[in-house]
Structure formats: structure tokens, C-alpha cells
């Protein structure tokens, strides 16, 4: 009886997984190489052939520097498989900085869109193109329809999308859309670096990343370090983001310092 039940349950789970994967059963994933995070992600790594949302808070909503660096690091392993298209709204992305992080700038094609709708349609076009491994886009908000279209474009060729939520010229935030078709949503902020003992200056860049939503996985928050940044010798082919520590969900500081709440 219980065998029968377990079998039915397993079959049903597989069915749901297939529906969730949008009809693609061979969804690939890109492991970070650390069980503390890979165990929480569906398929043991960042799902490929889907699109991911990267959000930030405070001033970063306008400047989007930490999300850009974090996304470039996420996309670096994908750059070996094909081209990466970065759809900008404001052309302040600086390739020498990406080269320093370990992202190959010769694999990058930059496109500067004139408005939000154009940025999303260029992203969609690029995602559905053969030879494009990843598309990074910057947009203020993605409604359910646009998100679904991005997902369909991802499924066409298996390209992975990254959408950095950014208000490029400041201003008031648009109303948040209720749901999202994204596979994951990360909230990213810079974190203080820790240089090795006895060294001056800054250490390797660190990021606090909270996985706020994850389809088919569990959320969490982690402290990442990019040991490859500005150091050619450290580049050994492993994932450019190294997990330093797991953070409690509450530990991740919001935009305002904690004592501001108390006051």
C-alpha cells in the first residue's frame, strides 16, 4: 500500500516538476561548488535556461554597481559557452572593471536601449538567439506578461537571463508587480571585505546575497567572496563566487541600519 502510494507521489512530483520546468525536462544547472547553497537550489545549482532577478536596495537601486558585479560573476562561467549580451538603459557599465572581476570583456556585446519596453524586447530577442549563452538586462520592473515572454525566450535555446532591477535615472519606484516568472530572485549588497591578516588595503570583494525566491528550492542568505577579482593567479576554473558563510535571514541588513528602526 505504502509502496503504491510512494510511487504515485513520485510520479506526481515528476509531473509537477515537468510543468514547472516549462516542458523542458533536461534543465541544466550551474553549481556553485558548495553544498550549503547548491543543496537549496533545484537541481543542485543555479538553474540555466531560466531567468533570474537581481534586486538591490538603497542607493544601489539607481547605481546598481554591486548587482552588476555580482551578476557578471554569476555569468562568468556561462561566457565560456557563448556570447553574453548586456542590455543597458544608461551606458555606465565599464568593461575594464568587468575584466578585473574575471569576466571576459571580449565575450560581451553591449546594447543601450532607449526605454524600458525596448530593453525588455532586446533581451527577449537576444535570449532567443543561437550562440548567446547569457543575457543580462537592466529594467525597472517586469510584469507577469513580460516575465513569461522572457521565460519562453530562455527556453527556445537554453540561454540564461539575468535581470537587474534598476531605476537608471532615479525617481520614484514603480509599483511592484505581484508575482514574477523568474526562477530565482536575489537581493544583493556589497559587504565589507576582509584582507588576509597583515595586508593593507581592501580584500577580495564580498557580497551579501539573499535568495528571496526560488522555484523548486529553498531560500537562504549567504556571504560570497570573489577571490579571482584583480588576481590572475587565483583564477583556477572554479566558480568565481566562493561561499564564505551562511547568514541567518535576519542578519542581512536592509537599506537602513538596524538602529534606525529602534529610533
Amino acid at each position, binding site marked *: 500500500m505504502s509502496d503504491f502510494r510512494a510511487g504515485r507521489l513520485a510520479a506526481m512530483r515528476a509531473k509537477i516538476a515537468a510543468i514547472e520546468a516549462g516542458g523542458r525536462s533536461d534543465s541544466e544547472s550551474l553549481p556553485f561548488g558548495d553544498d550549503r547553497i547548491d543543496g537549496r537550489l533545484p537541481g543542485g545549482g543555479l538553474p540555466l535556461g531560466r531567468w533570474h532577478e537581481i534586486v538591490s536596495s538603497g*542607493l*544601489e537601486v539607481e*547605481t*546598481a*554597481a*554591486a*548587482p*552588476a*558585479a*555580482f551578476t*557578471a560573476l554569476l555569468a562568468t562561467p556561462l561566457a565560456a559557452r*557563448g*556570447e553574453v*549580451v548586456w542590455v543597458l538603459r544608461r551606458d*555606465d*557599465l*565599464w*568593461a*575594464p*572593471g*568587468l*575584466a*578585473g*572581476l*574575471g569576466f571576459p*570583456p*571580449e565575450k*560581451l*556585446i*553591449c*546594447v*543601450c*536601449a*532607449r526605454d524600458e519596453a*525596448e530593453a525588455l524586447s*532586446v533581451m527577449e*530577442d*537576444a535570449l532567443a*538567439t*543561437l*550562440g*548567446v549563452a547569457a543575457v543580462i538586462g537592466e529594467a525597472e520592473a517586469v510584469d507577469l506578461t513580460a516575465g513569461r515572454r522572457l521565460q519562453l525566450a530562455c527556453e527556445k535555446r537554453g540561454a540564461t537571463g539575468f535581470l537587474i532591477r534598476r531605476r537608471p535615472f532615479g525617481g520614484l519606484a514603480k509599483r511592484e508587480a505581484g508575482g514574477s516568472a523568474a526562477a530565482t530572485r536575489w537581493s544583493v*549588497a*556589497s*559587504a*565589507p*571585505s576582509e*584582507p588576509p591578516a597583515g595586508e*593593507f*588595503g*581592501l*580584500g577580495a*570583494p*564580498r557580497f*551579501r546575497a539573499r535568495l528571496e525566491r526560488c522555484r523548486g528550492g529553498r531560500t537562504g542568505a549567504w556571504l560570497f567572496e570573489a577571490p579571482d*577579482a*584583480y*588576481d*590572475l593567479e587565483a583564477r583556477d576554473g572554479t566558480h568565481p563566487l566562493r561561499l564564505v558563510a551562511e547568514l541567518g535571514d535576519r542578519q542581512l*541588513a536592509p537599506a537602513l541600519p538596524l538602529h534606525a528602526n529602534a529610533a
Partner: protein
Amino acid sequence: MRRLSAVSLEAAELGLSVGQKATDALALVPELATAEAEPEADAAALSALVDWCVRFSPAVAPDPPDGLFLDITGVDHLWGGEAAMLADLQGRLAANGLPFRCAIADTPGAAWALVHFGSDRIIASPGGQGPLLAVLPPAALRLPAETAAQIERLGLRRLGQIIDIPRAPFGRRFGQAALARLDQALGREREALVFRRPPTPWFARLAFAEPISAPEDMARVTADVAARLCARLDAESHGARRFELCFHRLDGKAMPLSIGLSLPGRDPVRIARLFAPRLETIDPGFGVEVVTLAAHAVEATSGRQARLDSGRNPTLEEGLAPLVDRLTNRLGPERVWRAAPVESHVPERAGGRVRPFAPAGEARPWNPEIPRPTRLFRRPEPVEDVMALTPDDPPTQFRWRGQLHRVRRAEGPERIGEEWWKGPIEAVRTDHLRDYYRVEDAEGGRFWLYRAGLYGDPDAPPKWWMHGLFG
């Protein structure tokens, strides 16, 4: 009867002239060497000369049988003036064994008259061709020989006389054409010259029995004409980077459209698709009767075979090139780029932009071991309330965009001077010196800020600027 159609300078000195009977000429000069006239070869040589003259001006028109019009508006300064340009042109022609007479005037008609009937190397000042023309005979108006002879028979031997007499009777007597020639010479009427176009042999044309105007018809004929031209390109293994589509309307207007490709191509479907979104900008008027498609920047491309493992290793032609073309034609070429290194230590110059499939430049790649920000502000933003322990120390705190940041860790300074070898030495100033610091605040934000100028100059105290963010 055989006549002389052209004579050399030496023959002219012996008294021979154009139009003379060949037998008479041989009687006068028994040792005369003659050759058969070849008008076709002359025309071909003239058109070759037209192509050659493009080095002097982009607008060159042939004036058969033996003349050239060059529109030198706005180009003579490259030679240091009209006289110098004239001398250079004439000298180069003479060096090639082509004795040309030259003149410069406001209008093609006046220049023609001065060349054929005036002395050599006349340069008419702007608006000053009237007195120069007044002394020339009526034949200087580029009139048929009979008309010119008729005018002279009436006693009008100088153009000055014609300019003065009433226009209406003159026009009635000799035709509007003669009046138009006079006006063209004096600059009262514009004259349209047919300037040389760089010819492209890659050209296809479709003419319709009935004029078309429906949008779907225009899309279909675009695909048809593209298929026709691309079949030829394909047969000769060529591809083109630029295509120019032109709709010729019933009322004689031509409506051109052009697209560019990042890699030479000849796929008719792709080309038609690039034109498709812009067809709606074409106003067909009363209908389009002819459509033409010309390919420019044609180069040989090898026929590429579809790869057997195309799923894994796609070629550029299959995926990326069409994407880049779509985006470039939609957004404009300046909005799609690949970053390329430029050898300059001034940050805002180091990030160059190239077309996505341009061959790699020779500049050294950026040094990935020197930390550089991921976001660089186009204009550095001012930073206030900067405190530093000693002048050359990194700041301990700063205010940017109204927010105070306490610096936890810092690196620097990295001194970046201006490129003094690019401008005059007097323009080099110490306040152009920048000392860059990479700092991290208590929250972990990493910033790239710099101090412009040096301490110690009371007139120009150093200022702090935010130039980029590392994230």
C-alpha cells in the same frame, strides 16, 4: 568624306584644324600621321578620367566629348585656395599627357565659356563672371552651332550685347534654350549636372505592369528583388555589407531605404526582414512602378556549409550576426558595441567601443590586476566634507549624494596625470592631476574617488570627485 576630328598641338601650329577634310590636311602636311577616331574609346577614357578626378572633388560630371565639370565648393581650401587647386589639377593632368584648359567660376556655364573662349586659368571671383563673359562670343553659351551663327549674323558678337537687350524678343527669336543657357552662365538659373556615382555592378530591378501601393505588396517585392540580387551574389560567392532599396514612384520621386550588415551577407530572407519594419515609412503616393536594390561594400565570402554539429558550435552567421544586425538597424549603430581596450591611462578614454565583429585592435588588453570600477560615471560627481589625516592619505570620511560615508579600508593613491603630450604644453596644469583612491565604507560599499590638484596652491585648492563604483 573623311575629316579631322581632333588635331594635336603641333598639327594646329601647322595650320590644321578640326573639321578640315583629311585630303586637304594631307595636301598641306604630307607627313601627317592620322588615326581612326574612336568615339566609344574616347567616352570610356573620359569616364575613367571622371573616376580619377574624384581625388579632387566628390562631385565630378563628364562634359562629352572632352570636358569635365568639378564642383569644388568647399574643397579648394584643402589645396590652399582655388588657384593652387587649379594648378595642381592642371599639372597632374599634364603629367599624364592630357593638356587641359581650366577655369573656375560660380556656374558650370560660365566656367565652360571661359575655358573654351577665354584664356587659360581664369578664376572668376564670386559673382564676378559677368564682365569676363561680356567679351566672349555667343558660341560660349553652349548653343548649337547654327543658333550661335545666327545670333552673330544679327550683329550680336559679344555676350555683353546679349545681356543688355530685352529678354523676351531674344527668347522668342532664338528659343527658350538659348535664354536658359544665358541664365545658367550668369547664375540666374541653377543647372543640374549629372555627377558621377560610384557604380555598383550589384544591382537588381523589378518593374511592374501596374503600380503597387499596398504594404503587403511592397513587402513581397522587397523579398523578390532581394532574392534576385542575392541569387547573383550567391552564384559568385560574394556578400555585401550594405543594401540600398529604392522605390521609384509614378511621379518620378525615389524613396530610398538602406540597411547595413555587420558581416557581409547574401541571405534574401534576412535582408528582406531587416527592411520590413521600415517599409511603413515609405509613402507610395499614387503607386510604385519600379523597385531597385543595390548592394554596396561587396566582398568575396566563401560559401559556408551548415555544420553537422551546428547545435553545439553555432557559427556567427547563424545566430549572432543576424541579432547584431537587427539591433543595429533598429537602435542605431552607436547603441550596439563591444568594449575594446584603448591604450590610455586616463580612465574615461581607456574604454573604447568597436563594432561587434570588428577585428581585434592592436591595443594591449586592460590589466585585470589593477582594480577598476564596474560602473564609471560619465561626469565625476562632487564629493564633500572629505577628511584625511595627512594630505596624501586616503580620506577617512566623505559625503556623496548627501550621505556621509565612513571609510573603513582604503587603497591609494594611484596618480593619473593628464596626457600632456596631446595638447600644448601651456595647457598642462597641476590641478589636472588626479590621485585615485579605492575606498570601502562601513557598509561595504566600494568607491573610486579622486582628488584633483595638489595641496599647497592657495589659488586652486584640491577638489574631490566620485568617479566610479566597484559594487
